[in-house]
């Protein structure tokens, strides 16, 4: 099986290392930056040797940014809280709506079924800016601008199609006979859905949920336009570090580290599910 020569293996190792450096170096550099002051970050030439400081993190956590122009209040921790709230609530709602819908698309043939499923997927094709302008107008009239409910609703454009299409593939993979057997054994349709279909599709549901969470977490444009400071997530909140007295690189770096930490932890914890879920959804969806 192993036909690779030593030379090939060395070249492969070097190439893999290059790719890893390309993708991971920025993150590594940001982690370094988050422990430096603006002065050490901006020195020329840059150096990896510096006196580490926790001032960036303490500024974020206490909410007071000390700049040369005076003290500035920043709402980073509130932004972080918003991110958690918006992403979690959006994914939860998308799961409640999307899992039964995915089951219906997988199991039942109904009029316009494929068209509806495709329309839901097409939300992922449209550039968000295209829908944002009309949405702002509607949201103003409905009184939904700058509300969590409004944002969670818009986030369904991100979460729902993802969950629907990945989970659908999983449901289609379950032999209908397994569900038939459970019904014949004396259980109702709803019990069969809960006790057989959902547990068997659980890896797919978990993967789709995590992906949706990451996509929702990383969203920037919806919250930028539709919400003001007190409802905005970290992605938008980071803009506050561009201050009158200059860009606070150290704080931005610390903010990035804090804001990627939850998704990174989730992704690492569930990466087995993620890969499985994505490939399966791709083949079967």
């Amino acid at each position, binding site marked *: 099986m192993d036909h690779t020569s030593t030379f090939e293996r060395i070249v492969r190792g070097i190439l893999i290392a290059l790719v890893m450096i390309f993708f991971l170096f920025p993150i590594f550099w940001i982690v370094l930056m988050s422990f430096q002051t603006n002065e050490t970050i901006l020195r020329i030439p840059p150096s990896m040797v510096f006196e580490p400081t926790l001032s960036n993190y303490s500024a974020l956590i206490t909410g007071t940014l000390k700049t040369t122009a005076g003290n500035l209040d920043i709402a980073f921790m509130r932004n972080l809280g918003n991110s958690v709230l918006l992403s979690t609530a959006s994914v939860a709602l998308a799961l409640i709506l999307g899992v039964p819908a995915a089951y219906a698309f997988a199991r039942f043939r109904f009029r316009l079924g494929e068209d509806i499923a495709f329309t839901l997927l097409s939300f992922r094709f449209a550039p968000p800016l295209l829908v944002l302008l009309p949405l702002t107008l509607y949201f103003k009239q409905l009184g939904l601008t700058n509300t969590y409910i409004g944002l969670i609703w818009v986030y369904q454009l991100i979460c729902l199609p993802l969950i629907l299409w990945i989970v659908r593939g999983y449901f289609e993979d379950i032999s209908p006979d397994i569900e038939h*057997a459970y019904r014949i054994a*004396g259980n109702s349709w709803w019990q069969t859905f809960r006790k057989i279909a959902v547990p068997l599709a659980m890896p797919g549901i978990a993967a789709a949920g995590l992906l949706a969470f990451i996509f929702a977490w990383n969203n920037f444009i919806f919250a930028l336009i539709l919400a003001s400071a007190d409802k905005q997530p970290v992605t938008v909140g980071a803009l506050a570090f561009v201050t009158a007295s200059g860009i606070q690189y150290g704080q931005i770096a610390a903010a990035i580290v804090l804001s990627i930490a939850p998704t990174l932890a989730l992704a690492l914890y569930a990466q087995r599910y993620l890969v499985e879920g994505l490939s399966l959804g791709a083949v079967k969806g």
Partner: protein
Amino acid sequence: MPHIELAAVSKSFKTNKVLDDISLSADAGEIVVIFGPSGTGKTVLLRLIAGVEEPSSGEIRIDNQDMADVAPEHRDVGMAFQNFALFPHLNAFENIASPLRARAQGESQVKDGVARVAKLLKIDHVLGHAPRELSNGQKQRTALARALASSPKLLLLDDPLRNVDAKLRFEMRLELPRLLRQAKSTVLYVTQDYKEAMALADRIAVLAHGKFVQVATPQDIYRKPATLSVARLFGDPTINLAETTIGDDGTIALAGERLAVDPSYEAWAGRKVIFGVRPEAITVRQGNGTGLKAQVMAVTPLNERTVLLLQTAAGAELLASLPSSSTAIPKAESGVEVTFSLNGAHLFDHETGAALTGGSA
């Protein structure tokens, strides 16, 4: 009063008519085997009765009650699927317990119920295993146990021995009749193995092209096949068939000779027919001048019976089956004369394949 009744049931998938005007009834406690080659709609028929598919037309009645609007969970049937359809995330115990739990029984009743069928099917030692840890035979028994667990009045078994190895299939063929009698259920059993059908059935319903061609006891199916296809499906080795025309004197032309088999054949004088004779209805003698002359090409002993391959002077091949204990088994390459005994000889219409003698629909 019949326990289950199918009245003019048809089922189509889009333009494809799978079952066409099927009628069948079974009495309580009766074992009816639905037999037919694959793709004839046997499984669909069971699914209709279980309620997981709906008939396109016709009526299914259980205990004289129309099942049209009765959900599968309220039909009190047990079903074993050909692909087992075990719940992969539940262990064998929970699989078997599922019909008992659905009937809201107490924990001790569930335990007793599972223990009872598990012991009957000899799987009590693997109850803690997940389905993927079970051998095919154990999966099959678990699926059967699940169908039997709640002692349903109607059992639907969809080719349960299809996916198990030959040894287990043989054992189960011996065991199943006892198990099924013990369950006291009405049983509809689907198979495409004629030996299984003969071993288990009170009656066999032969399904072909979406219709029942014959519904009768195993003996009648074998001795009086209603059509050529039924005659061909039952029996090992299969029935010998030859196209021929009946002469004015009731003799048939076979391998260049005219043969008088049964004087009653005169009724179909001049008609093109297919003559069939069971291998065991062939008598082989060492030449006394009365029978069809043939050469023994091969002698194959198969346990209690020995199969001979014969070739007539005109080149037609015949299979004959004799008891191995018989002293009259000829040697290979020897010349013999062949006669047919009446109860294994059949005439079928050349066009329709319908039996002209003996068979009954």
